[in-house]
């Protein structure tokens, strides 16, 4: 197993965001986490990439509330739930965050180079950059442009490209289809499949169930911080209740 989450619980003050969640991702898979708004999908990704713990530290320092975080996360045979976020990246677990969040004031190229911050060898960053340009030719055209001026689709490509620059073993992508036109969604998902075919394991959080089920190996359905079902897209769609209540199909 590349990633194993066991009994993960996250509470912000009294609100339970994730309740005793366990899941795993095997090397080479493309696994999706689907479910309605507020189910805890993004929080799961933020928890494994260390951002929840980071936020907890800030809240403690500013005495503005507390976050409760419990459970174990094992990545590549090593426990990472006690490691700070900036160290987790180094181990190859990379998160492409919700709402894309490019560095808007910086150029496209600087954004991508920021992704390769940990790579000490400029030659290697250069090679990864070429790979990103090959995946997303539009980023090459736009490389001197300020990221804030890109279109939504391009910004999503940039966010994925930037995460790719961190040389992930496991790439977690949070809601890449938000705010994109259907044609662009299709394109983004094709790129994600392509990255997966390059041998990079992907954990995808999405609401766009119909597209996701076609490409992922396995899926988890999340609701109110709990996993309520799992299986291939076909299996999940065949379940009448599940389909009507949670998947909106």
């Amino acid at each position, binding site marked *: 197993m590349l990633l194993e989450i066991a009994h993960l619980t996250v509470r912000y003050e009294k609100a339970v965001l994730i309740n005793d969640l366990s899941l795993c991702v095997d090397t080479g898979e493309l696994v999706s986490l689907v479910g309605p708004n507020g189910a805890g999908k993004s929080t799961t990704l933020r928890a494994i990439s260390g951002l929840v713990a980071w936020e907890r530290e800030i809240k403690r320092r*500013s005495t*503005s509330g507390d976050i409760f975080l419990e459970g174990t996360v094992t990545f590549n045979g090593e426990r990472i739930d006690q490691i700070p976020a900036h160290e987790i*990246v180094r181990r190859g677990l990379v998160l492409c965050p919700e709402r894309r969040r490019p560095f808007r*004031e*910086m150029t496209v190229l600087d954004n991508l180079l*920021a992704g390769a*911050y*940990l790579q000490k060898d400029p030659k290697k960053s250069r090679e990864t950059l070429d790979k990103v340009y090959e995946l997303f030719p539009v980023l090459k055209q736009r490389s001197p442009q300020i990221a804030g001026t890109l279109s939504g689709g391009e910004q999503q490509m940039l966010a994925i490209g930037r995460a790719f620059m961190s040389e992930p073993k496991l790439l977690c992508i949070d809601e890449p289809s938000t705010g994109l036109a259907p044609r662009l969604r299709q394109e983004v998902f094709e790129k994600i499949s392509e990255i997966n075919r390059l041998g990079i394991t992907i954990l995808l959080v999405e609401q766009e169930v119909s597209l996701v089920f076609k490409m992922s190996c396995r899926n988890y359905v999340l609701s109110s911080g709990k996993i309520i079902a799992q299986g291939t897209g076909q299996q999940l769609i065949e379940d009448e209740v599940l389909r009507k209540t949670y998947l909106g199909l």
Partner: protein
Amino acid sequence: MNIIITGLITGSMLALLAISFSLIFGVARIVNIAHTAFYMVAAYCIFSLTGKFGLNPIAGMMIAVVVVTVLGLLAYKFLIDPIREHEAAVLIATIALAMIFQEAVMLIYTGDYRTVSALIEGYFIVTGVKVFYQQVLTFGVVLVVLALLWFLLMKTKLGLAIRSTAEDREVANLMGMNDSRLAMITMGISVALAGFTGAVLAPLTVLSPFMWMEPLIIMMAVVVLGGLGSIKGSFVAAFILGFTEALVVFMIPKGAFLKGSVALTIMILVLLLRPEGLFGISFEEER
């Protein structure tokens, strides 16, 4: 001519102060009220080193910058870092720090006005106006430092990390950038620049334990005019205010008394009309 020279020198000084102030604000959201107090400490360091110990002025300047940087890092480590996420507490702590510096200087050097001798004496005359070599030197050195700073920020990996963290601390973390370590490094750079400004300005000004207050206010006005956290904005705004100040001082009789109020008026107008400043970024809500 006088206006241009004074404007350029004041402008470049303000640019250095405002940019270094903006840097640490951008990366760690620290409003360092003691910023100009560090600049005062540097000026007094030089006064002591060159005056009492008879050191070479250039060596004095270097030592002063190092002393101030170390002081700044210590203050950061023991005073600011533990309360870093508490903006109001940081504000109060840095005001206290500035007062401590002021009183310490008062104790050691008394409140008398002091001067530091110029690095090079003499002047030349352009269109009937005396231009001191020291003024030209100061301006040149400041420009070189600004260029170096630009290079550091735009062309190095550290600069990339500083810019990324300033823009989105959380995402920068996801790229492997350690935000607390970067805050420490940036604090060092910021205070070193404040110290450097004090060092190069010392020969052109009169030292007193209260010399940190006026530049602090004008620097704040610069930062507000340029847009909080925007380096480019601080640079442009510094020269705008530098020239405005020079114009007021030379064009209006007894105008020297007005320069502080002009800066404040500009600050208030900007806050009323365009709160984000010339190049301001409207901050995205942190989650």
